[in-house]
C-alpha cells in the first residue's frame, strides 16, 4: 500500500489530484447546485416556475437591462480613457518609467469598498450629487486599472517590427495605428472588457454606496433574493449571469484569459 502510494507520488502528474478533488467540491459542485436550485421549487421538485417568475416580472428584467446598459457604458468609457494610457505607458518614447505603470495598477489592489467610499467622499467634497452620473463615474474609477493593464501587457509584448514594416511601406501614423497596432492589441482589449464588464454588471455594494440606494443594479437584486431566503429564484438570476459569462467567453474565445490574469501579478 505504502509502496503504491510512493509510486503515485513519484509521478508528478498525480500531484494535481488533491486540487482536482478540491475544485470538484468547491468550484464545480457549487455551480451545479446553482443550476439545481434554479430548476427546483422549495420542496426540491423539478419546476420551471422560477424562470416564469423572472420573465413575468418586468421589474427584474428592467433592472437587468438597465445594469447591462450601465455595464456597457462603463466598459466603453474605460476603453476610451484606458487605451491611450496603456498606449503611452507601453511606448518607450513617451514614457520611460516603470513606476508609472505601477502607479496605475496600484489602486486595483485597494479594497473596493474603501475605494468607493473614497469616491463618495470626493463627490461630497466637490459637491457632485450622487446618482446615475456618479454611479458611472465611480464605476469607471473603480475598474479603469483592470482595462489598462491587459492592454498594456499586450502592447508591451507586441513585435515592433510590424510597426516598422508598416512605416517603411509608407503608411501614415494614423494608418499604422488603425491597421497594425489596434488590431494586434485586440486580445488585450478583450481581456480588459471581460475584466470590466462582468464585475460592473454584477456588483452591488458599489452601486448602493454611490447612489445612496437610489439605483438598483442586477447584483443587488440577486443579493436581496438570496438574503431573503429566495434561493431558488436567486439561483435563476445567478444562472442568467453565468449564461452571460459563457456567451462572452465564447464570443471573445479568450483562450488567453489565464495569461492576462497572470499578467496582473
Amino acid at each position, binding site marked *: 500500500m505504502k509502496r503504491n502510494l510512493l509510486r503515485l507520488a513519484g509521478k508528478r502528474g498525480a500531484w*494535481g489530484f488533491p486540487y482536482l478533488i478540491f475544485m470538484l467540491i468547491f468550484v464545480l459542485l457549487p455551480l451545479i447546485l446553482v443550476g439545481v436550485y434554479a430548476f427546483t421549487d422549495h420542496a426540491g421538485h423539478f419546476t420551471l416556475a422560477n424562470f416564469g417568475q423572472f420573465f413575468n416580472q418586468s421589474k427584474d428584467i428592467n433592472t437587468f437591462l438597465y445594469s447591462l446598459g450601465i455595464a456597457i457604458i462603463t466598459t466603453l468609457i474605460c476603453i476610451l480613457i484606458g487605451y491611450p494610457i496603456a498606449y503611452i505607458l507601453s511606448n518607450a518614447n513617451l514614457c520611460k518609467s516603470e513606476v508609472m505603470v505601477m*502607479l496605475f495598477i496600484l489602486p486595483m489592489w485597494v479594497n473596493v469598498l474603501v475605494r468607493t467610499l473614497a469616491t463618495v467622499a470626493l463627490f461630497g467634497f466637490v459637491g457632485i450629487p450622487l446618482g446615475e452620473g456618479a454611479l458611472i463615474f465611480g464605476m469607471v474609477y473603480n475598474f479603469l486599472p483592470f482595462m489598462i493593464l491587459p492592454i498594456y501587457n499586450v502592447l508591451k509584448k507586441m513585435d515592433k517590427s510590424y510597426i516598422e514594416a508598416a512605416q517603411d511601406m509608407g503608411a501614415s501614423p494614423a494608418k499604422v495605428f488603425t491597421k497594425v497596432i489596434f488590431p494586434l492589441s485586440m486580445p488585450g482589449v478583450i481581456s480588459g472588457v471581460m475584466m470590466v464588464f462582468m464585475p460592473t454588471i454584477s456588483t452591488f455594494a458599489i452601486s448602493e454606496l454611490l447612489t445612496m440606494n437610489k439605483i438598483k443594479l442586477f447584483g443587488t437584486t440577486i443579493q436581496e433574493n438570496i438574503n431573503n431566503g429566495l434561493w431558488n429564484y436567486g439561483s435563476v438570476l445567478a444562472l442568467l449571469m453565468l449564461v452571460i459569462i459563457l456567451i462572452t467567453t465564447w464570443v471573445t474565445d479568450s483562450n488567453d484569459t489565464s495569461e492576462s490574469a497572470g499578467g496582473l*501579478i
Partner: protein
Amino acid sequence: MMKKFFAQAYLWLILILLYAPIVIIAVFSFTEAKVLGNWTGFSFNLYTNLFEGGVNNSLMKAIGNTAIIGIVSATFSTILGTIAAIGIFNAQNKRYKMVMTSLNNIPILNPDIITGISLFLLFVSIGVTQGYTTLTLCHITFCTPYVVLSVMPRLQQMNPNTYEAALDLGATPFYALRKIIIPQIKSGMISGFILAFTLSIDDFEVSVFNLGTNGLETLSTFIYADSRKGGLTPELRPLSTIIFLTVLILLLIVNYRSAKANKKQTA
C-alpha cells in the same frame, strides 16, 4: 516633443483623478470631524482611537478576523496551488491538463457574486453551519487559482532534467521536491502568497454571503454594514490610509522581486 508633453500631461491628469479620493481620505484622517470634509484642526486622535480599540471594538475584531483568514487561506492556497501547479505542469495526459486549467480558470472568470452564491448554496445544501472554517475554505477557493498561475511560469523556466537526476541518484520524490523544485519556484510561490493574501483581505462579495449568522465580520463586511447604517465610522479614514500604504509596500516588494527575477532570466 509636443507629443510627449501631451502624453505626459494626460497620464498625470488621470493619475491625479485616480488618486484624488485616496488623498482626500488620507488628509482627513488627521482631523477629528465626524463628517468627512470638515476640518477641525490637526490631530492624531483617529489613529490612536483605532489602535486603542476601546471605541471600536467590533472594528478591531473585524480587522483581526480579516488578517487571520488572510494568512491562513494564503498559506493553504500556496501549498495547494504549488503542488497542483507541479502536477498540471508535469501531466502527460492532454485532456487532464485541459480539465485542470479550465477548472482553475473558473473562479478567476466568475464574478465574485457568483462564486459567493454558489459556495453559499453548497454549504446550505450539505447542512454545514457557516463560520470561520467555511469562510476560509471560500477564500482558499478563489485564491488558489492565482497561486497556480504565478507558480506556473517559474516551472516553465526550470530545467526539467534536474528533478529526474535527483531521482536517479536515489532521492525520494519528497526529498527532490524540497531540494530541487521548491528552491527554483520559490519566487513564484512568494508572489502567489502575497497575491492570495491581498485578494483575501480585499474580498467583499464572497465573504458577505458566507459569513454565517454568528456575527462573524471581516473588514469589508464591517465597512459595508457601517455605511448602510448611515454615518461612517471616522476611524475608517486612518484605517484606509494604513491599508493603502500597506498594499503599496507589498506591491513594491512583489514588483521589485519579479523585476529582479526577469533581469536574472535575461542576463
